C-alpha cells in the first residue's frame, strides 16, 4: 500500500457535542481518484465526520492530511481553497437563476455599466459541463429542473471552484432510481478523470454498485474499511447494524385474535408529489405485534402519517375495528389508535404545559371527562395521579411544566397517556430511539403488556435488535413497498438486513430491481 497516494487522511478524529460523542477516534483514508463510500445507520457519525473534513465543524481532537500535507480545516472556505467541494443534501441554489448563473454566482465578471458579462458566464458553464461530462442546459432555469439535474448543478458549482475531492452527503436520498444510476455514471467518470469522491450513504446496494472502498461507521466509531471486491451485502449489513445489545426476550402470553387494524393497498404521496407508499397492505391482529422494519426514509414516516390522518392517501383504505377511517380527521382516528411518536419530546409533548395537561391531552374533549363546557378537573386529577403512580413518573406534583422533568420521565408521560386511552390499537414509532437501555426496556415491557392484554400493536423500527425482541410478525418496507413478510423465528438478522437494504425481495412483490444477492 506504500506506493498509494492518499487524497484524504483523517487520524484519530474525535468530536463531542456536549456529552454526546459523535465521532470517537475515527481513522479514515481515501485514495486519490477512488470512490470511497462511508456507510452507517443514522446517527453513526457520517455527516459529522464529513463536516469536519469540509471545515464546517472543528474536531475536538485529531489530525487531517490532504494529499499528504497536514492541515487545519478552519472553515469551508479553507476547504474549498484546498480543493474540497461538498454537495449537501439540501441544495444551495437560486431557483429563478439559470444553471450558468447559479454556477457562477459570486464569480461573475462585470462589463459595461456594471452589467454582468452573460456571454462569459454561459461560455464558462458550457466548458465546465463538457469537461466533466455532466450534461446540462446552461440556459435552463434551475427552478424548472428535476432534483437530479439540480444536484448536477451543485456538483458543477463545486467543480467550478476547483474541487478535486468531492463529498456527497446522501446524494441519492432525493433521487429516483434512474437518476441515481445516472449520478453513479457521472461519479465513475469523474473518478476516472482523477477526482476523488467520498459518498455518504446508508444504502448498501448503491455502495456495492459504485464504491471502490467502503468505510463502515457505527455509533461514532470506525468498524473497518473494506475493499468492495472482497466484501458483500451480508458482511456490510452485519457491520452496520452491530451485534445484539442487551435485549432479553420478554414473556408473551395469550393468543392472536381478529384483525383490528386493516390497511388495504394504500398509496400516498409527499408534498413534492413523490410516491412514498406503494400499495401497502397488512393486517394487525389483536394480541399481535406487527413490525414494519426498514432502513429509515423508506416510507415509514408517511405510513404513520397516513394511518393517523396527517397525510391523505391517494388510494386504498384503512379500517380500524371494522370502521373505515380512511377519510376521518385526526381527532376522530385517535378514538381508535393510540400513537407513541418517534420524536416524543416535540411531537408527543407540550414541554411548556403541565404534567397534568400533557397526561390528559386528547381525553379533554371526550364527554366523559367533561362537565358541560368545562374539563372535569376533579376526575382528570384523579386519573393523572393514578398514572403518575402506575408509571412511577418522578415529578414534583402534576402542576409543574413537563420540561422540568428528566428525559426518561418525559418519555413515561407519553407512554402513560397513550397506553391509557382505552384504544385497542397502538402505533409505536422507534421506541428505543434516543433513550438509554433502561428506558427502552421499560417501553418494551409496556408494549408487550398491551399485546398480552389483546391490543393490536404496530411497531415501526429500524433497529434489528428491537425488531427481533418484540415482533410476532415482520413486514419489511423498502422504497415505499412491503418487500417481505417474515417470521422472527425463521429469519436471521443478516437475511433481514438484505431485505431492508433492497438486496432481496419476496416473490410477487412489485419492484423494478432484481435481488442483488440470494
Amino acid at each position, binding site marked *: 500500500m506504500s506506493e498509494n497516494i492518499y487524497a484524504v487522511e483523517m487520524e484519530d478524529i474525535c468530536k463531542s457535542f456536549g456529552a454526546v460523542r459523535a465521532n470517537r477516534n475515527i481513522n479514515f483514508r481515501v485514495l486519490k481518484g477512488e470512490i470511497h463510500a462511508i456507510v452507517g445507520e443514522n446517527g453513526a457519525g457520517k455527516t459529522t465526520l464529513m463536516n469536519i473534513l469540509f471545515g464546517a465543524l472543528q474536531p475536538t481532537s485529531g489530525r487531517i492530511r490532504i494529499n499528504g500535507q497536514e492541515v487545519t480545516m478552519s472553515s469551508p472556505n479553507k476547504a474549498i481553497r484546498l480543493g474540497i467541494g461538498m454537495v449537501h443534501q439540501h441544495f444551495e441554489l*437560486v431557483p429563478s437563476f439559470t444553471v450558468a448563473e447559479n454556477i457562477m454566482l459570486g464569480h461573475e465578471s462585470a462589463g459595461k455599466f456594471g452589467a454582468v458579462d452573460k456571454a462569459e458566464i454561459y461560455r464558462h458553464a458550457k466548458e465546465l459541463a463538457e469537461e466533466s461530462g455532466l450534461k446540462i442546459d446552461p440556459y435552463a432555469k434551475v427552478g424548472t429542473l428535476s432534483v437530479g439535474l439540480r444536484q448536477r448543478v451543485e456538483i458543477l458549482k463545486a467543480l467550478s471552484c476547483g474541487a478535486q475531492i468531492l463529498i456527497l452527503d446522501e446524494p441519492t436520498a432525493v433521487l429516483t432510481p434512474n437518476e441515481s444510476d445516472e449520478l453513479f455514471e457521472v461519479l465513475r467518470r469523474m473518478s476516472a478523470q482523477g477526482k476523488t469522491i467520498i459518498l455518504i450513504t446508508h444504502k448498501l446496494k448503491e455502495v456495492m454498485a459504485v464504491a471502490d472502498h467502503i468505510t463502515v461507521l457505527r455509533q461514532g466509531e470506525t468498524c473497518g474499511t473494506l475493499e468492495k471486491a472482497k466484501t458483500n451485502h451480508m458482511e456490510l449489513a452485519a457491520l452496520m447494524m452491530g451485534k445484539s445489545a442487551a435485549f432479553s426476550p420478554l414473556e408473551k402470553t395469550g393468543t392472536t385474535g381478529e384483525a383490528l387494524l386493516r390497511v388495504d393497498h394504500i398509496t400516498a404521496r409527499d408534498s413534492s408529489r413523490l410516491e412514498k407508499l406503494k400499495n401497502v397492505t397488512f393486517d394487525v391482529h389483536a394480541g399481535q405485534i406487527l413490525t414494519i422494519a426498514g432502513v429509515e426514509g423508506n416510507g415509514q414516516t408517511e405510513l404513520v402519517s397516513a394511518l393517523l390522518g396527517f397525510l391523505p392517501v391517494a388510494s386504498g383504505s384503512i379500517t380500524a375495528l371494522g370502521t373505515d377511517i380512511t377519510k376521518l380527521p385526526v381527532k376522530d382516528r385517535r378514538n381508535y389508535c393510540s400513537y407513541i411518536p418517534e420524536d416524543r419530546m416535540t411531537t408527543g409533548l407540550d414541554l411548556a404545559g403541565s404534567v397534568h395537561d400533557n397526561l390528559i391531552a386528547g381525553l379533554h374533549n371526550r364527554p366523559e371527562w367533561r362537565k358541560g363546557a368545562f374539563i372535569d378537573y376533579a376526575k382528570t386529577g384523579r386519573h393523572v395521579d393514578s398514572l403518575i403512580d402506575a408509571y412511577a413518573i418522578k415529578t414534583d406534583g402534576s402542576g409543574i411544566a413537563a420540561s422540568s422533568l428528566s428525559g426518561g420521565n418525559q418519555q413515561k408521560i407519553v407512554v402513560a397517556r397513550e397506553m391509557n386511552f382505552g384504544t385497542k390499537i397502538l402505533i409505536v414509532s422507534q421506541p428505543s430511539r434516543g433513550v438509554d437501555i433502561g428506558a427502552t426496556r421499560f417501553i418494551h415491557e409496556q408494549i408487550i403488556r398491551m399485546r398480552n392484554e389483546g391490543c393490536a400493536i404496530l411497531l415501526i423500527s429500524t433497529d434489528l435488535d428491537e425488531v427481533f425482541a418484540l415482533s410476532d410478525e415482520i413486514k419489511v418496507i423498502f422504497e415505499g413497498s412491503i418487500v417481505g413478510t417474515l417470521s422472527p423465528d425463521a429469519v436471521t438478522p443478516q437475511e433481514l438486513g438484505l431485505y431492508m437494504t433492497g438486496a432481496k425481495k419476496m416473490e410477487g412483490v412489485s419492484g423494478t430491481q432484481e435481488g442483488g444477492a440470494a
Partner: protein
Amino acid sequence: MNVLTVLFSAATFAATLRMAVPLLFVALGGVLTKRAGIENIGLEGLMLIGCFSGFAANYFTSNWIVGILAAMAVTVLFALLFGLFVVQIRSHEIVAGTAMNVMGSALTTYLLRSMFGVKGSFTDERVRTIPNISLPVIKDIPVLGTVLSGQSILFWVSLAATAIIIFMLYRTKLGFYIRAAGENEKALASAGVNVKKVRYIALIMHGMLIGLGGIYLSTGYLTQYVEDMTAGRGFIAMAAYAFGMARPGRTFFAVLLFAFVQALSSRLQIFGVPSYFADMIPYAITILVLAVTSYREMKRERV
C-alpha cells in the same frame, strides 16, 4: 354631461400619472427590499418621514433640490435604522415595520407642531414647488399633450428609476446578489458574498426611492404639508408590488392600475358619490386585487 366622457377623459389620465408618481417610487423601493429578502411594512412611515423632512429642508433653504436631497437622505437614515433591527438584530419584520409606521406618524406630527407651531396643515411662500416640465411639441397634441406635458420633473425621474432598477436587478452583479439574497441566502453566502452587505445596499436604495415618493407629495403634487398626508399610499404601494410579484415591470403596471382607480374615485365625487365612499374605492379595489392575486398564486402552487 356624459359621465363616462368625464371619467375617462384626458384629465383623468393626467391625474392618473400624477397619482402614480409617489406610488411608483415607494413600490419600487418595496420591490428592492422584497427581492433582497426583507419585507418592510413600514413604507407608509418612511414615506411620511421623507415627505416632512424634505418639506422642512425646502422651507429653510427655499430650494426644491435641497428639499429632494434632504428627503432622500433622511429616509435612507430611517431605512437603515429599520435595517439595524431586521438585518443586524434579526428582530421581527412586522413588529419593526409597524414601529416605523407609528414612529413616522408621531414624529412628523410632533415636529410639525414644535418646529412650525401649527397643527393640521402648513404652507409657506418660502417653500418652492418642484417644477413641472412643459414638453415643447407634444403639449399641442390633443390628448397626449394634456396627459404628458406639465408633469413634474419627478414623474420623469420615476420612469427613469423604473428602467434603471430593471437593468440593475436583471443585468448587474448587484442585482444578481439582491435576488439571490431574497431567494436563497445560503446559496449567496456559500458563494462567499456578504448577504448583510447586499441587504444594506438594497435598503439604502429603498430609502432613496421612498424619500422621493414622500417629497413629491408635499412639494410636487401639493405645496403644502398636511399631517399624515401619505394617507395610506405606503400601503397601496405595498399592495402594488405584491400584485406585481415584486417584479419592477409588473409593479409599474400595478401602480398605474391603482393610480387610475384613485384618479377615478376623486372624479366620482363630482357626480354626487359621497366623498368618503369615493375615498374608500381604491382601498377596496386593493383588497379585491390582492385576494385575486393570492388565490391565483395558491392555485398555481397546487399544480
